[in-house]
C-alpha cells in the first residue's frame, strides 16, 4: 500500500492547479457575483481536454485514471467550485453513462463532441416531485414507430443553461416498478427542448443551473442508452461515479478554505501577534488539516476501487458523505478564523462557505449516502 502520490498524480495536480489559479482565480469572485459562465476560460479548457477526462482516447478523450480525475476536479474546485461542478457533472453523469452503456454507434455519435467540450453534458433526473426518491419521476417517454416522444420538466439541472447533450431519465413503463425508467440522449437542438431561467442560487453561481423543458421532444431509438427499462441501473451507476466527482469537489472547496485560513492566520495581527500563534487557531487548523487528509484517503480509495473494476458504490458514498460534510464544517471554521472579514464578499472564504452546503445535497443527499452505506454494511455476512 503506497500513500505517496506517484509522479503522474503530482504532475496532474500541478498542471490543474496552475491552470485554475491563473485562469479561474482572477474571475472566480466576479463570475460568482454575476452568475456568469466564463466562456473565455471554458474555451481554454476545451483545448486542454478538461471535458474529455475519462472519455476513451479513440473518441478524443484523455482517458485518465480516477485518482487523476478526482485530482483535477479538486484543483478546479479549490479555486472555483462552480466550474469544478461543470466539469465533474459533464464528465461523470453527463458522458460516463454513454462510455459505459452506449453502443459503439452511440459512442461514435455523441462522445467526440462531449470530449472536445463542443457540447457540454447534463444529467436530468431531479423533478419537482422527485429528488432523493427517483421513483417519483413523472417525465415520460412514449414509444412510437421510430423512436420516443418525451414530455416533462426537469429542475435544478447542473449545466442546464449551457448543455448541448442532456441525458434524460424518463418513465417508459408505468406497470413494472423495477423497469419503469429509461435514459435517453437529448441534444439541445431537438425540437421541443427548451431551457428555463438560470436559478438564483446560494452558491455554485457560475454554474448555469436551470430547468429543462421537454415538450413533445422526439428522439430516435438510437438515442436510448442501454436497454429499455435500464434507467434505474444506469442512473445508480452514474450516481456512484458522480459521487466521486462531488467528493473531490467538496474536498477542493475545503482545501481552498483551509489554504486561505492558513495564509490569513499568519498575516492577521491581534494583540500584536499573528493569530496563528494562538493555540485556539492552531487547534482549528490542525483539525481542518486532519479532516481534509482523512477525506482525501477515503476518496482515493473509492477511485482505486473503481479503476480496479471492483464494486465502489459504498466507498464512493462514504467519500461523498464525509467530504461534503467536512467541506461545510471547514468552510464555516474558515469564516470563523477570518472573523468579520470572512463574512464579507471581499474574501474568498465567504464564497467557499456558500458553495460547500450544496455538496451535502446534490448527487444524493447525506441522508441518501447514509442509506447506501448502511445497506452495504447490513448486507454483509456477519
Amino acid at each position: 500500500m503506497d500513500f505517496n502520490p506517484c509522479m503522474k498524480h503530482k504532475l496532474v495536480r500541478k498542471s490543474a492547479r496552475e491552470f485554475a489559479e491563473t485562469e479561474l482565480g482572477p474571475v472566480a469572485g466576479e463570475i460568482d457575483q454575476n452568475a456568469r459562465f466564463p466562456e473565455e476560460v471554458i474555451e481554454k479548457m476545451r483545448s486542454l481536454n478538461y471535458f474529455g477526462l475519462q472519455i476513451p482516447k479513440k473518441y478524443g478523450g484523455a482517458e485518465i485514471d480516477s485518482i487523476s480525475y478526482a485530482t483535477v476536479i479538486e484543483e478546479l474546485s479549490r479555486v472555483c467550485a462552480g466550474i469544478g461542478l461543470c466539469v465533474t457533472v459533464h464528465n461523470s453523469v453527463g458522458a460516463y453513462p454513454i462510455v459505459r452503456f452506449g453502443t459503439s454507434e452511440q459512442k461514435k455519435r455523441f462522445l467526440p463532441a462531449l470530449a472536445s467540450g463542443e457540447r457540454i453534458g447534463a444529467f436530468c433526473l431531479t423533478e419537482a416531485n422527485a429528488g432523493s426518491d427517483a421513483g417519483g419521476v413523472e417525465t415520460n417517454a412514449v414509444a412510437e414507430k421510430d423512436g420516443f416522444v418525451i414530455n416533462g420538466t426537469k429542475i435544478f439541472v447542473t449545466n442546464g443553461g449551457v448543455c448541448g447533450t442532456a441525458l434524460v431519465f424518463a418513465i417508459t413503463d408505468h406497470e413494472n416498478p423495477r423497469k419503469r425508467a429509461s435514459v435517453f440522449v437529448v441534444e439541445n437542438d431537438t425540437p421541443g427542448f427548451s431551457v428555463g431561467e438560470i436559478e438564483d442560487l446560494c452558491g455554485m453561481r457560475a454554474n448555469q443551473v436551470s430547468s429543462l423543458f421537454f415538450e413533445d421532444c422526439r428522439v430516435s431509438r438510437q438515442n436510448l442508452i442501454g436497454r429499455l427499462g435500464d434507467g434505474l441501473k444506469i442512473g445508480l451507476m452514474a450516481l456512484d461515479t458522480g459521487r466521486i466527482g462531488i467528493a473531490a469537489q467538496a474536498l477542493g472547496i475545503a482545501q481552498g478554505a483551509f489554504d486561505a485560513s492558513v495564509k490569513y492566520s499568519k498575516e492577521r495581527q491581534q494583540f500584536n501577534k499573528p493569530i496563528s500563534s494562538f493555540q485556539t487557531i492552531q487547534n482549528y487548523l490542525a483539525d481542518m488539516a486532519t479532516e481534509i487528509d482523512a477525506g482525501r484517503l477515503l476518496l482515493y480509495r473509492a477511485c482505486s476501487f473503481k479503476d480496479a473494476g471492483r464494486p465502489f458504490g459504498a466507498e464512493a458514498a462514504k467519500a461523498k458523505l464525509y467530504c461534503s460534510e467536512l467541506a461545510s464544517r471547514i468552510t464555516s471554521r474558515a469564516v470563523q478564523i477570518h472573523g468579520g472579514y470572512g463574512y464579507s464578499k471581499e474574501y474568498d472564504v465567504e464564497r467557499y462557505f456558500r458553495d460547500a452546503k450544496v455538496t451535502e445535497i446534490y448527487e444524493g443527499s447525506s441522508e441518501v449516502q447514509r442509506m447506501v452505506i448502511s445497506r452495504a454494511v447490513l448486507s454483509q455476512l456477519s
Partner: protein
Amino acid sequence: MLKLVVCIKQVPMVSELPWNSKTGTLRREMAEGMINPACKHALESALVLKQEHNCHITVITMGPPMAEEVLYEAIAMGADCGILLTDPRMAGADTLITSRTLAATIETRCPDFDLILCGCHTSDSETGQVGPQLAENMNIAGAAYIEHMELNGRTLRMKRVVDEFLETLEMDLPGLVTINTRTYIPRYVPLDGLQNAFEKQDIKLIDADELGIDPKTIGMKASPTRILDVYSPVEEKKNVVMKGAVKKMVDRLFDEYGDRISAAIGKDLKTHDHDEEQT
C-alpha cells in the same frame, strides 16, 4: 526533419517550499520540483518551431531521479522524448562541468542535432552561463537572450533586446540559443498529453558509465567553482535623524546620500552645485 534539443533544469518550487528562518536557507529536502521558468520559455519556443516546421524535440535534464518529472511534463506539452542524466557522481556540478556533461550527452545521443535551446538563466542560481558555455564547448554558434526566431532553410533569424536596442541576428545551423522570458509564454499542460507521456514512457535514464564519460570530469569534484556561503540578503533599512545647522545637514545629506537621491529622481546631482544655489 529538424532536430531540436532543449536543455531544461528542475528547480525547487519556492512558493511551496518551507523556509528555514534560522539559517535563511531553503529546506530543499522538502522541495517540490518544477521546470525552471526560463527553461519553460525555451521549451515553448521549440514547440512553436515544431508547429511551423517538421521538428523532433529531445529534452535533456541532469539531476536526481525525481527530475524525471520535468521530462514527463515537457513531453506532455509536446516534446517527443527525454534524456535524464542521473548519477550521484554528477551531483554538485557547477555551470562549466554541467555544460561539459551536457555537451558529451548531445554529441553522443543527438549527434545530428540542428538547434539547441536553453533558458537564459535558472531561478535557483541565476548565473545564465550554461547555455553560452555549452555553445562554446560544442564549438557552435550561440546567441543569448533571444525573444523571437524565424527559420528560413538552415538560417535562423533572431531578435533580442539589448540595452533598449532591438537587435536582429542571423546564424546558420547548427547553433544554440538561450531564450528570454519576455516572449514565448509557456502553454498549459494538456491533460491528454500528460496521460500520453506516461503511457509512452519515452525517457532514457543515463549514468556516467553509460555516457562513457570519465567520472573524474563530472560532478562537484571536477567543478572549479566553490560556493563559500549561502545567505539571505540582510535588510539594511534604517532611519537616520540629522541634527544641526540646516546648511551642514544639507551638505551631509548630499555627501552621504547624493547617489541614492540621484537614482531615485533620475537626475545626476553631482553636476549641480547646491552650495552656490543656497548662497
